[in-house]
């Protein structure tokens, strides 16, 4: 009994074995080593389960019944891709893990270089995560995006990630290199065939130089049967402003894990997001924010609205290393439970090794405030509408803090649509 029992391989793990063998056979010698390394690292851990602390609330071992076959190269119609509705963008289309130039914008934008890549990423900051390793073991392709120093990209850069087909899986590796002094808005969307069951696993590496100003909006609107995992590895230079927003609406199971490290002093990172969940959706946002250098500021503000039997998970860890004096880190998690069967799990963690810091975290969980509801209803607003107004207000607070006008409008429209709140007058 003292020896750990040998854990049986799940059906999903067995499928993955076969997939790895097949993809390895087609891989060139150079990349084969990288694949093997990542595969060994994945095999050492296996599919994460609830006894793995970082995955405690998202037991992938039980939730991932099977690993679908690797998606093949397809050419969906341009109309299938939604992306950032209503915005003039520079589009980068990634279908089934591969860059598709035909569906992407082709006119040159000064300061922006987009090249197809094999999806293997050089560095994986702070990530010794099984699913990130799995991505690199099975990665099908990807893209390298480079923004030159001091370039201001007016148009939003839109990365549309589309999984085409049902019972397939896609693995993409994306590298984004942002030069010092650059300014840009990046809108990343994850989508697929409506009602299709598929798995998408993305690994995204973002390196930002000094004095940059970057807004990054992630729209997770996968099909409602999809399983979605994205791992971010973010490194920030000095005096930079990095704003990140996760909008979670799709997928039966989603997990966004963000590993962020401050590499230069005087940088501000705003990490925000909203999860809108119903039915039996499960959405997990997990952060590791490492203050490795002094005088950086981080804000982690997330909100979830959870209905039916859905479950929202938030785990955030702010680490302040011994040298990171004058760190300012604030984390706030607010959740609204709309039904008696909905569930919320929050774990806002602080790990502090420096003394001259201001760190705080907070968390609130509850239903819509009865008094606010009463206030609105006393003014003649029907209950259903009043509830929508309050939910909208709850989410809007988080959105507005993103401070990027185009994104705020886009998000507000998406939230209204989700809420069926057309009858609610906007300000």
């Amino acid at each position: 009994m003292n020896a750990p029992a040998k854990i049986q391989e799940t059906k999903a793990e067995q499928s993955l074995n076969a997939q790895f063998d097949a993809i390895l056979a087609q891989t060139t010698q150079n990349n084969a080593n990288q694949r093997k390394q990542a595969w060994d690292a994945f095999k050492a851990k296996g599919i994460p389960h609830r006894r793995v602390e970082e995955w405690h609330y998202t037991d992938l071992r039980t939730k991932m019944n099977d690993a679908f076959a690797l998606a093949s190269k397809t050419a969906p119609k341009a109309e299938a891709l939604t992306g950032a509705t209503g915005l003039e963008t520079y589009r980068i289309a990634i279908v089934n893990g591969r860059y598709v130039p035909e569906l992407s914008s082709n006119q040159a934008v000064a300061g922006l270089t987009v090249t197809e890549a094999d999806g293997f990423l050089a560095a994986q900051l702070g990530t010794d995560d099984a699913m990130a390793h799995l991505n690199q073991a099975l990665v099908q392709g990807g893209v390298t995006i480079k923004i030159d120093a001091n370039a201001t990209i007016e148009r939003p850069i839109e990365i549309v990630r589309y999984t085409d087909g049902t019972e397939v899986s896609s693995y993409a590796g994306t590298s984004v290199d942002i030069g010092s002094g650059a300014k840009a808005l990046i809108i990343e969307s994850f989508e697929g065939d409506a009602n299709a069951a598929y798995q998408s696993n993305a690994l995204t590496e973002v390196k930002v130089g000094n004095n940059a100003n970057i807004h990054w909006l992630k729209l997770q609107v996968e099909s409602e049967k999809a399983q979605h995992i994205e791992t971010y590895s973010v490194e920030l230079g000095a005096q930079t402003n990095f704003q990140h927003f996760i909008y979670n609406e799709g997928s039966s199971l989603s997990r966004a894990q963000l590993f962020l490290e401050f590499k230069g002093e005087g940088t501000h990172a705003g990490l925000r997001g909203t999860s809108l969940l119903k039915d039996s959706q499960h959405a997990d946002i997990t952060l590791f924010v490492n203050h490795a250098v002094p005088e950086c500021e981080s804000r982690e503000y997330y909100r979830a609205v959870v209905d039916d039997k859905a479950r929202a998970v938030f785990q955030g860890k702010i680490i302040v290393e011994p040298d990171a004096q004058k760190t300012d880190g604030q984390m706030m998690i607010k959740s609204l439970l709309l039904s008696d069967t909905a569930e919320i799990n929050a774990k806002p963690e602080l790990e502090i090794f420096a003394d001259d810091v201001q760190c705080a975290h907070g968390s609130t969980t509850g239903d819509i405030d009865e008094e606010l509801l009463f206030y609105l209803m006393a003014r003649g607003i029907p209950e259903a509408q009043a509830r929508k107004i309050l939910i909208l207000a709850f989410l809007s607070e988080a959105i507005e803090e993103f401070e990027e006008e185009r994104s705020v409008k886009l998000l507000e429209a998406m939230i209204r649509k989700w809420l069926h709140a057309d009858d609610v007058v906007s300000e």
Partner: protein
Amino acid sequence: MAAVQETIDQVKAIDVDQYKYGFVTDIESELAPKGLNEDIVAFISAKKEEPEWMLNWRLEAYRRWKTMEEPTWARVEYPKIDFEDLHYYAAPKNTEGPKSLDEVDPELLETYKKLGIPLAEQEILAGVAPENRVAVDAVFDSVSVATTFKEELAKAGVIFCPISEAVREHPELVQKYLGSVVPVSDNFYATLNSAVFSDGSFVYVPPGVRCPMELSTYFRINEKNTGQFERTLIIADKGSYVSYLEGCTAPQRDENQLHAAVVELVALEDAEIKYSTVQNWYPGDSEGKGGIYNFVTKRGDCREKNSKISWTQVETGSAITWKYPSCILRGDNSQGEFYSIAISNGHQQIDSGTKMIHLGKNTASRIISKGISAGVSQNTYRGQVSAHRKASNARNFTQCDSLLIGDKCGAHTVPYIESKNSTAVFEHEATTSKISDDQMFYCQARGLDEEEAVALIVNGFVRDVIQQLPMEFAVEAQKLISISLEGSVG
């Protein structure tokens, strides 16, 4: 910044070597041979003259324990404990049931005098109003040697005795409640305790009785190389109230000493239990050598409606603290509270917190945790608040604040918040900071010197918790805080 540097120097200068209660009392002990097996378990049971059911209970626990592994999830580091290299039983000799204080070994009483336990002040205490009396069930190593105020408690119907006596005298109560809050197989240390527990306190407060005095136990680990395994069981029957005080000191040692206690509280309908702890065991020397390993399982069960359990702790000692006094809020309208001050200095490591498990309707809990780390210590708050599907209108408020003194220490917060009920309202807030220059300036501008200013600010920082302590303890707690942070607290 000068002020802070000075504070660090001062904390360093006083270092934990000056542990005030580090002395060894020479009293012969009866030792069980080193190591643990079924014979040792039987030996302990026989020493206690236990009935067979108790022995079987222990043996079952021992067999379970053998299949378990030491938990490693806490943020504490220590050399692996060799469980075969410990004595599992040590009893002071000459303890043939002293009838009064006169019969107690004078050296023992001397020890208590050094600790400032008012045991020998029975007459003085007897002179004061009954509300202010404190009953002491003193635990010297493993066997309770003196119990005071027994008669008056008996008049009220309160049973307050060593648990070994309760096993013999009140088997029906012990059988019914022992292990009902912390099951035999709960965790590694609790299971070990179940197998080898030496002694501890047993309290039963009958229905409708308000315990006429504060009950108090002083623990003291004395015999060299002896793990001490306390077992405490407190039952508050319908409509009763009891306040229990626990405090402990230990003599200075080079080798680490293991302490794995289990405390079980059961509150029935309308009952209230208040459990206060001041823990100042030897924290190890300035190199981090020695010191007590304190692996404690404390849990209260608000078993019936309108019951209330309140934990208050002041943790200043031990090399390693691993302790999570918890409340299971099973009864409707039940309440749980946790107030904690955890101070770590030198090489101390604290991983402590609480669990509030909301199962019943309209249950409420409150967590106030104040962590202060200095030296090169690590101080972790780890807490769980959860609402079951049926826990309608559950309410929790959690506040955990950490104060860092010096730049070599760490303060960590690991809360788990789990809600399965939409009407449950959970609020959690945590802050980490140091004493700000502004605060120091403000105080100093009003004529306080640095020491006084730090003292004032730290006292303000922990005030919410100190206020929760019974009067008798509040004074000692404040004294302890100043010993623990001497130099910075003044």
